[in-house]
Structure formats: structure tokens, C-alpha cells
């Protein structure tokens, strides 16, 4: 009988422990095991026919953005932010690379034209690059430092503040 008095609170301990763990973890948090790892290399062909690769931009801060023309409204919200960011930071060694995911060619081209995107954009045939980057959905943005290491990941529409916050410290780092 005395045992029973202890058994019930004792049984509650692991349950409470598990709940505490579960509730403190953010269910919307999508941790990427790729952060702090070398960015996966890719070599794609852009919509303009020019090669688009990460390797070609070694030494610069690279913003790799995964988007799609069907991604409404998040990709439409962030497209002007990316274009403005690219224009603002390109002189300091930043490049934006857009990777178009699961899209049709005409719809993707219309999207690029609509926002006047001037940074390189390429389709991702077979989704190989998206899977290589562990992309769940669009938009997702990776911040690659001058040494080619992924330093951050942003899920959802990128805002001007989020872009600045992610990119400024990386731009201040030396390339070596």
C-alpha cells in the first residue's frame, strides 16, 4: 500500500520529462545537418544558357535560394528582397544563385522576368541539387561563406532584415 503511494508519482516522472522535452522543442524548427558543413557543389545550366555553379564563386559570400514559380506567396514576397540584396551587396563580394525547383520552363522564365531578376537562376532537373541541400520545400535559402561552408539556413520568405543579418557578418570575413 505504501508502495502504491510512491509508484504513481514515480511513474509520472518520465512522462513529465518527455513532455518537457517535447514542448521545449520547436515543432516548426527544421534543423539542417548541413549548417557548418561544406556546401554541396553543383553545376547547373542557367535559364540564359550560362553555367551556374557554386565553385565559380569561391571566395564570395553565396546566397543559394531555392524557389519555384508556383510557390505563392512566399517566393513572390522574397524575390524583390533577393534582387535588392544582390544589387546592394554585389560590390562587397556577394552573389545570389537562384535554383528553380519542380517548375515548368515558361512559368519560371515569366517569374524571372516579372521581378527582373538579374542574378543567375537555373532549373534543378530531377531535384538533385535540392535533395543534396536537404530542401524540404520552397523557399529555402542557404548562406555560404567565402570558404564554401554553409553558415545558415532560412526557411520561408526571406525578409530584408533576415538577409542583412545573415549576410553582413559573412561579408566581413576574409576569404582565406
Amino acid at each position: 500500500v505504501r508502495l502504491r503511494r510512491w509508484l504513481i508519482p514515480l511513474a509520472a516522472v518520465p512522462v513529465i520529462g518527455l513532455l518537457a522535452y517535447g514542448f521545449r522543442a520547436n515543432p516548426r524548427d527544421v534543423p539542417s545537418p548541413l549548417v557548418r558543413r561544406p556546401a554541396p557543389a553543383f553545376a547547373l545550366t542557367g535559364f540564359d544558357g550560362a553555367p551556374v555553379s557554386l565553385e565559380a564563386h569561391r571566395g564570395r559570400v553565396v546566397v543559394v535560394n531555392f524557389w519555384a514559380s508556383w510557390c505563392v506567396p512566399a517566393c513572390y514576397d522574397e524575390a524583390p528582397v533577393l534582387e535588392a540584396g544582390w544589387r546592394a551587396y554585389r560590390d562587397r563580394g556577394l552573389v545570389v544563385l537562384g535554383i528553380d525547383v519542380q517548375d515548368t520552363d515558361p512559368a519560371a522564365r515569366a517569374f524571372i522576368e516579372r521581378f527582373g531578376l538579374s542574378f543567375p537562376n537555373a532549373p534543378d532537373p530531377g531535384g538533385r541539387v535540392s535533395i543534396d541541400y536537404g530542401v524540404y520545400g520552397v523557399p529555402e535559402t542557404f548562406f555560404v561563406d567565402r570558404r564554401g561552408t554553409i553558415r545558415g539556413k532560412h526557411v520561408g520568405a526571406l525578409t530584408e532584415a533576415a538577409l542583412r543579418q545573415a549576410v553582413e557578418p559573412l561579408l566581413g570575413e576574409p576569404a582565406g
Partner: protein
Amino acid sequence: VRRLLAVLLAWGLASGLAAAQPAAPSPGPVSEEAVAEVASRLRCVVCQNLSVQDSPSEMARQMRDLIRERLARGESRDQVLAYFEARYGQWVLLTPKLHGFGLLAWVLPATGLGVGAVVLAVLARRWARRGSAPGAAARAAPGAPGPPAGPGQAPGDAAAPGPDDRERVRRELERLG
């Protein structure tokens, strides 16, 4: 007639060979079963509670293509799974790993079952003892040993019904019957 037979035989042989071909394990192309084996162990990243094998989504189809390609390149099942885990984290594996936090998923159910079985066994023994002890005492006649009363059966156990209780129960049963 003989020529026709020969042609028919040749045709039958050829079609038989053609039919047998997909079943034979060939080193080059990867069987759908092998792809499914890997795909069913991966969580579809754009679905809720679906494996890459079961999902009709475009993303899952691309992942299955990639699995097929990697297997064809000679990678083992575990190597392909490790690739996806490196990209998406342990979350992508539908079967928790046997170490770290994933180990809990394996150990907890087994531990729970074991603890439950022990608790049940102890309780069942206690209930059985409680149920049989008074009856055994009442029927205890010299030379006719009843079921042994448990060693834990204290004389002053408050839960055990005394002679008065038994008499009352007998009287009430009579009244009901």
C-alpha cells in the same frame, strides 16, 4: 507443319526468355524491390507520415529516382540511407537508429512491457492469495490440505474477511437466492 512448329517453338522460347528476364537479378539495372526497400525506410519530406515509397509527390518520385541511381552506381542500402540522413538529419529515417535518442524508441516499449508484466504478475499473485486464503482457512480440515496460504498472509490483515463477514455474506446470498 514442322516449320510452323519450329517457328512456334522459337517464338515460345523467346517470349519465355523475355518474360524471365526481369525476374533474374541482373548486375546493371536496379530492381524496383531494391529501390522500394530503401524508399520505404525514408520519410517523405513534403508529406505527413508517408514514406518516400508510398508518397505520390513529385519530390518523393525524384528521391526514388536518386535512390535507383545510387544503387545502380553500386552503393549499398545503408550507404544510400546515410546519404539522406546527412542531408535531412535522422528525422528522415523512418526506423530510429539503435543509438542516441533513437535508442529510446526501441528500449522504452520493451522496458514498458517488461515492467508491466512484472507488475501484473505481482498483482495477480496478490489477488489470487487474497481470494483463496479465506476459503482455504474455512475448508481446512485435518488430512485435507487446502491451497497453501501465502507466507505474507498476516493474521491481522485488515483486508482479509473475518468469520463474521463470511457469515454475513452467506446470509445475504441466501436472501438473494
